């Protein structure tokens, strides 16, 4: 098989949404001769490859399809054309707090996450320890997460997603919340995880961060790839594209 070291291979990936109430309008009326459903192309013809230990930075203006791309890769939304092959266990941190339940305590959320993310039974205790150590929430972990500040909530969510044994981690604007100290800790984690062979896809507007962390870059504009290649070139492309508009 060619290119076996690629952990992510995306070929001509596309996603269209049916407009009109998300269901594509009213199918019964359409069958009876009403207007056909309108579609919006959220992603079209995306191609890239990512190898083990590499990170891809996805940039683009609001609404350019970045989050949709991550959702498709995470298997949350189904694509309407093309293929993405992901080799390894996939983790995702797509919104702040990564689905932590407000009524459950930090510890209970961790136990829940371990089962939802498929952490093997024998590694659960180690997982809880690592999450607790990473998020540094201490005794706060015994409280329901609805009492957390937004930064604390973000820290718990990040730690739960990052400490799970995954090979590919998809992260959408993960560092937006969290204080300086925690951000540095996250950087440290990214470098070490990459050295261990884990791969990342970051969506971010923080270009210096992407420049530091990523080898590859992808610039999206209205659902299409403006540039795919090295992160330096991608940042230049994104900056000139933004300035041009």
């Amino acid at each position: 098989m060619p290119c076996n070291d690629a952990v992510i291979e995306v070929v001509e990936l596309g996603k269209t949404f049916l407009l009109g109430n998300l269901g594509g309008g009213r199918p019964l009326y359409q069958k009876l001769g009403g207007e056909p459903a309108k579609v919006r192309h959220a992603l079209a013809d995306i191609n890239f490859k990512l190898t083990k230990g590499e990170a891809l930075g996805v940039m683009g203006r609001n609404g350019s399809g970045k989050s949709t791309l991550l959702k498709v890769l995470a298997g949350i939304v189904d694509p309407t054309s093309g293929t993405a092959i992901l080799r390894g266990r996939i983790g995702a941190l797509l919104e702040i707090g990564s689905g932590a339940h407000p009524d459950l305590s930090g510890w209970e959320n961790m136990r829940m996450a371990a089962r939802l993310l498929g952490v093997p039974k024998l590694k659960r205790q180690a997982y809880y320890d690592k999450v607790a150590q990473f998020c540094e929430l201490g005794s706060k972990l015994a409280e329901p997460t609805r009492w957390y500040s937004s930064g604390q909530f973000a820290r718990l969510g990040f730690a739960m997603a990052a400490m799970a044994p995954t090979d590919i981690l998809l992260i959408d604007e993960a560092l937006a919340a969290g204080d300086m100290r925690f951000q540095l800790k996250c950087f440290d984690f990214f470098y070490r995880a990459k050295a261990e062979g884990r791969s990342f896809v970051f969506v971010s507007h923080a270009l210096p961060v992407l420049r530091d962390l990523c080898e590859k870059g992808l610039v999206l504009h209205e659902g299409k790839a403006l540039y795919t290649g090295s992160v330096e070139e991608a940042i230049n492309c994104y900056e000139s594209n933004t300035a041009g508009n």
Partner: protein
Amino acid sequence: MTRIIQIRKPHPKGQLKRLWQNREAVQALVGRQFKSRFEKPMVGLSWMLLQPIILAGLFAIFFGALVRVPSGNLPYPAFVFVGIALWQGVQRALSESANVFESAAPMLRQTSLPRLAPVLANVIGASIDVMLALIVAVFAGLLFGTTIGLSLFLAPVFLLLALIATIGLAAALGGLCGAWRDLRQTIALGLQILMFASPVIYPSSLIPEQYRVLYALNPYAGVIEGLRFTLLGGPMPDPLYLLISASSAFAVFIIGIWLFLSLEGRAADAL
């Protein structure tokens, strides 16, 4: 561990395999649901028993004592209790599942868990209530003078049939109402119709003989008659009708899962 993401076609075998691999997640979902139902309690767990007891009592007064609905050789309160015990669970599982793409959205937005997992968790969660309520029904029956015999050991067969039919229906409703949300308006009405089409408050012997085959197509017809037979020592249901109900339960299961898998992509676009 390779995952291929592309246009999804309904692929029941692969999906059921993934569900099995994620069985612990389903278990965790059942636990979470259970916990959130009894969070900040006033009465707590007793609700699970109080509700069917109160409802059965109400039906016993109106339909048993006042309208005098026939219940064969069984005392009406015990007769209706079995029906109510099952029906409350079915109702809860189905109405929750119709809403699944909304209620489970926070989780479906974060993990690539099979989208059937929360549907399954709803049904399993409701079946715990049903089982507890049925145990009470057996004791209530003994109190009113019913007998239990060896047929008691057949009860799990009927519970399993109920589970199969309910999973199918829950999946169908979850997929349909996720894809076209206006369909949710019809759930309450549909559940009422289904209740009157099942022998919950009346015996199926009231149905004219020429319609009995049609009536038996409702899987719950066979299930409820079967539960009364096994748990209360009621009359033995006609094997032909039982067979029809059982086959119908499996058909509902297969069609429901297929519907869910064909519609889940459309429903997930709203996540």
